[in-house]
């Protein structure tokens, strides 16, 4: 078996569909969307200019796997660096062991094209991809998760993840019905840390971020050891004005732009963790670390006004974690993993010391972007 990795071309669309069908057939109960053509080859309007698609094809032009390199500029230390997100690697090896080597071939091919790779998300340590990356010498870290319950009764009735037994479900229903749940959750969120009360900040949602975003980026970038480029041009690609799902929030103090956030407010239906809640999320943002509490407070208020039942956020940097705590968020279990290739890990080493996660700036805006929120 000789398999070559090739740049994607439309001539392979039928072969990709055939791969998708074989993956479906091979995994009983797999969510169909996981391997749909849509997911394997995103629609033209979802593709980013810096995405490169690669296929693993055998001698018969049968596609056995694929992956995407999403090239991005990052600010690392005191300079700009081009690195890439290792996106959606799929190998037929997951359904046919004869192709077990393909997953490794995809990874090595990606590393040969761009040694500075990162992965984000991946579903937790028990999943195959992070295990593979760890075996390949990647550094793997967990990006902390925080949540704030706005409507305790709705939360208690819908938090599928915590209602796994009939007894627990009945208990949660009882707490929701009697008001004890409301009292307990509100008390916990208030006592956990004193609430941040920003007085001087104002915020507004906009269709497109203001030009001052670029100045903010220039001011803030050096305040983080690692941060993906977040200037206006990048944000226009990540959060295009035409996409009405994104709430773009600008936060000002005495008229001066001090930060921004991208929020989502999604009505869920039968979600595997959050049931039928309206899920608010602070997906992305930027500010000087000292101003993170003001941005989080404004984001929380905006989502509360928009009717969110629960607000969630993943943040790697300690200033943003502290800001979330100060605004009444509680830490919860996280399955958002950040993996860095050996070469990128070396780049992120200063004086022989790995830059700790809490000095890097990663959130749901990185990697795939907030597609699952």
């Amino acid at each position, binding site marked *: *078996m*000789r*398999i*070559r*990795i090739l740049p994607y071309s439309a001539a392979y669309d039928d072969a990709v569909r055939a791969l998708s069908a074989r993956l479906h057939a091979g995994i009983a109960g797999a969510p169909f969307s996981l391997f749909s053509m849509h997911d394997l080859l995103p629609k033209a309007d979802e593709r980013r200019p810096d995405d490169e698609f690669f296929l*693993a094809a055998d001698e018969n032009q049968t596609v056995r796997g694929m992956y995407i390199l999403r090239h991005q500029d990052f600010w690392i230390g005191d300079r700009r660096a081009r690195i890439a997100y290792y996106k959606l690697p799929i*190998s037929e*090896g*997951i359904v046919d*062991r*004869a192709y*077990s*080597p*393909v*997953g*490794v*071939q995809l*990874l*090595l*091919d990606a590393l*040969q094209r761009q040694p500075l790779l990162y992965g984000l998300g991946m579903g937790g340590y028990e999943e*195959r991809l992070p*295990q*593979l990356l760890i*075996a*390949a*010498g990647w550094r793997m870290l967990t990006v902390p998760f925080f949540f704030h319950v706005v409507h305790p009764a709705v939360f208690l009735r819908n938090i599928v993840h915590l209602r796994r037994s009939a007894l627990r479900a009945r208990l949660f229903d009882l707490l929701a019905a009697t008001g004890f749940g409301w009292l307990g959750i509100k008390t916990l969120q208030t006592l956990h840390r004193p609430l941040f009360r920003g007085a001087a900040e104002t915020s507004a949602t906009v269709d497109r971020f203001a030009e001052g975003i670029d100045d903010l980026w220039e001011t803030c970038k050096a305040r983080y050891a690692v941060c993906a480029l977040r200037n206006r041009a990048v944000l226009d690609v990540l959060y295009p004005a035409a996409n009405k799902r994104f709430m773009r929030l600008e936060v000002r103090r005495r008229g001066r732009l001090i930060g921004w956030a991208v929020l989502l407010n999604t009505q869920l239906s039968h979600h595997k963790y959050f049931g039928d809640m309206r899920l608010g999320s602070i997906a992305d943002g930027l500010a000087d670390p000292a101003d993170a509490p003001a941005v989080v407070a404004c984001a929380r208020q905006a989502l509360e006004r928009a009717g969110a039942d629960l607000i969630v956020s993943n943040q790697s940097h300690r200033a943003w974690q502290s800001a979330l705590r100060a605004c009444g968020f509680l830490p919860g279990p996280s399955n958002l993993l950040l993996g860095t290739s050996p070469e990128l890990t070396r780049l992120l080493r200063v004086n022989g010391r790995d830059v700790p996660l809490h000095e890097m700036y990663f959130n749901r805006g990185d990697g795939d972007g907030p597609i699952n929120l």
Partner: protein
Amino acid sequence: MSIEERLAILFQKVFKIERDEFSPHLQPEDLLLWDSLGHMNLVMDLEETFDVRFEADEITQMTSASRIVEVLKAKGVKD
């Protein structure tokens, strides 16, 4: 020690098999742990044991124990 004997030891370690279960004909379909993760572990151990670096296309040629021996020999590893 021959390449095959050293490979048998690696298979024991990576795929948790007994020495007498090893055969040159073993393929991924034959061993529970020879999935993509197992293959990665095998490649990493091969590189360390035989002091070689594999190219991506060599990785997919390693579809059986005997093919791995061939790849190693092609890279100049001697018995």
